[in-house]
């Protein structure tokens, strides 16, 4: 039996690492991967509380997080590729003016 409160702490730490990645890196691909890690940390906490309260609803929420992440990756990578076709640089500041 693994300690559930420590797993919640691990989820918080992973969320913070992902937030650091989103704020510090300027490559949009790496920022996107860090955001994926934040999704994953939230899903881990949902599953942990589902185990803790013996309630399947948390696992359903984690499943929906996985589905949402799939949709988000599809549309986000399409946006990154189309921005790269216009600008030919992988730098998030290229889109700071929101002009195509």
């Amino acid at each position: 039996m693994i300690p559930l409160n420590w797993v919640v702490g691990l989820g918080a730490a992973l969320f913070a690492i992902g937030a650091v990645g989103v704020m510090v890196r300027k490559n949009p691909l790496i920022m996107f991967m860090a955001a994926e890690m934040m999704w994953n940390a939230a899903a881990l906490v949902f599953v942990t509380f589902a185990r803790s309260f013996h309630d399947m609803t948390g696992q359903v929420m984690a499943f929906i997080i996985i589905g949402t992440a799939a949709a988000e990756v599809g549309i986000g990578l399409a946006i990154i590729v189309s921005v790269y076709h216009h600008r030919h640089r992988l730098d998030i500041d290229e889109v700071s003016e929101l002009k195509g």
Partner: protein
Amino acid sequence: MIAFVILAILALGGGVGVVVARQPVHSALFLILNILALAIFYILLSAEFLAAAQVIVYAGAIMVLFLFVVTLLTAGKDDAEPQEGLAGQRLTAGILAVLAGGGLAVLGVLYPSQSIPFGLPPNFGNLHGMGLNLWNQDFVYLAAVALMLLTAAIGVLVLNRPQRRQHRAGVKGEDS
């Protein structure tokens, strides 16, 4: 506890690797390590179906898509990280995030939720129990995710639609 420590080291190492790695390909590989560690966590938390879904959807579909895009966009390039726009932005972001995340982690560890000690209900975590929930009380969420996936697919098609005028001009240029 030993399993927890090993898996936590793997997950945290993968997470730090994603942020620190210079090449996006290395970031993607570290993220796969992180995702697989979390999948083993799901098995230990008796969520077998979610572990399978995590491996298939995340480590399979999403990361393959990421690797395709990374190889498409950064093949043969060795771009240095661009200069930061705001002075001191990285240091401030790091300090604030470490404070917030560390605070949340300490709170989560110090105040454990009141867990139910006795045995798990039947069908906990397997496909049967998940389906019972998804098709009865949580059907709204399932329908919403289905709609969102459809919208995302159509959105990708609209974003990357072929541009007719440029194509025709290119063909004409080849003819002349």
